């Protein structure tokens, strides 16, 4: 590229969507939204969205499971190369159905 006038002004450029990742389990797409935190979409075999998923980094231990699973973090996906065994690192994941009855609730 040669010298150019950039289309942005410092500190005021719009945010860009994060890059997408495939995770380690089929049927999901994920986007990082913070350190050790991802949001994703789970699809069925026909390509329909089944759930929105939220993952937070943690080991496969009862101690690392967010709030002992009481808030819905009932699934764990390993990091690439990690075995599904006690103490391995991965993501604790909660699923929220896209047809959730409360969808379209209060203004955020």
């Amino acid at each position, binding site marked *: 590229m040669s010298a150019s*006038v950039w289309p942005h002004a*410092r500190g005021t*450029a719009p945010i860009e*969507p994060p*890059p997408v990742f495939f995770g380690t389990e089929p*049927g999901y797409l994920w986007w990082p939204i913070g350190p050790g935190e991802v949001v994703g979409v789970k699809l069925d075999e026909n390509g329909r969205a089944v759930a929105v998923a939220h993952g937070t980094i943690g080991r496969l231990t009862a101690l690392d499971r967010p709030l002992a699973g009481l808030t819905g973090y009932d699934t764990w996906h390993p990091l690439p190369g990690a075995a599904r065994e006690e103490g391995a690192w991965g993501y604790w994941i909660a699923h929220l159905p896209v047809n959730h009855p409360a969808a379209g609730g209060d203004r*955020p």
Partner: protein
Amino acid sequence: MIGVPPFPVAAPAPSLTDFLWWYIPPGRLFGLRLADDGRPLEVAFGTVTAADAVAAAGREQSDGRPLWCPQDDSGLHGYALSYAPFPLSGEQLQGLRVKPQWPPLPSAVPTDDVPPAEAQQPMLQEEVDLGLQLQFPVCSFLKETRTDLRLHAHYAAQGQMILTRIGDRISATTTVKNLLPLQDPLPTGLYFYEAWLEQVATDGTVRVAVPAGAISVGEDGTGTGYREFAADNVDGTGLPIDAFNGTAVTAQPRESAVGQSEYVILEGTLPRTVKW
């Protein structure tokens, strides 16, 4: 907020009711636009942002979709929004053999007590006033402007550009660390990193940007770029080196994404007191 899952909310703006929305504590939004048959078409991301951090001119896309919308009636805070097309259908995803990937993470227990770049590189001055032709290198420390291309998510990406004058030539050496390597298997949509010398106006507008070397980032997240310029006519712009007061590192979109602007990852300033 660890352990608190997202919950469904109403659209943050009347023009965004074609998305389903979830609030992700604290202060984030995730939107999903579906076709009639339930296939995802588009996703949206929102982050709570102060109104004065967003230029009025940058609050709307060319198609009229908001890039910022107020959070409450005061208008002081709102959500900065971005949108991305859904990259794959479920059938494609099921049939695709992809390398398992998660966003980069530290391999051990995360820590935040990383010393800033300045503390790690005490040998270089940021303010230099020699009053004569520069004999020593000048360093512009680069500060992070977006975090999603970190290799290790819990550590800031860092960098510096060192400018050295040798006769009528200026050499620019840029080093970066903790950036995600941009390799073909990664579906980031980005192609490579590039360093820039900039002329920045007082209102923050970048008037002129001159490429100062592509940066190849390796598996360890570090990389270096290098370029030389004529000191009195930098990159054929007709501008002398002292007309430049800013530095940056960008990630460039792939060729298929021509038309998108570069993503600014790191930014720095050149010392005003330097006498080149």
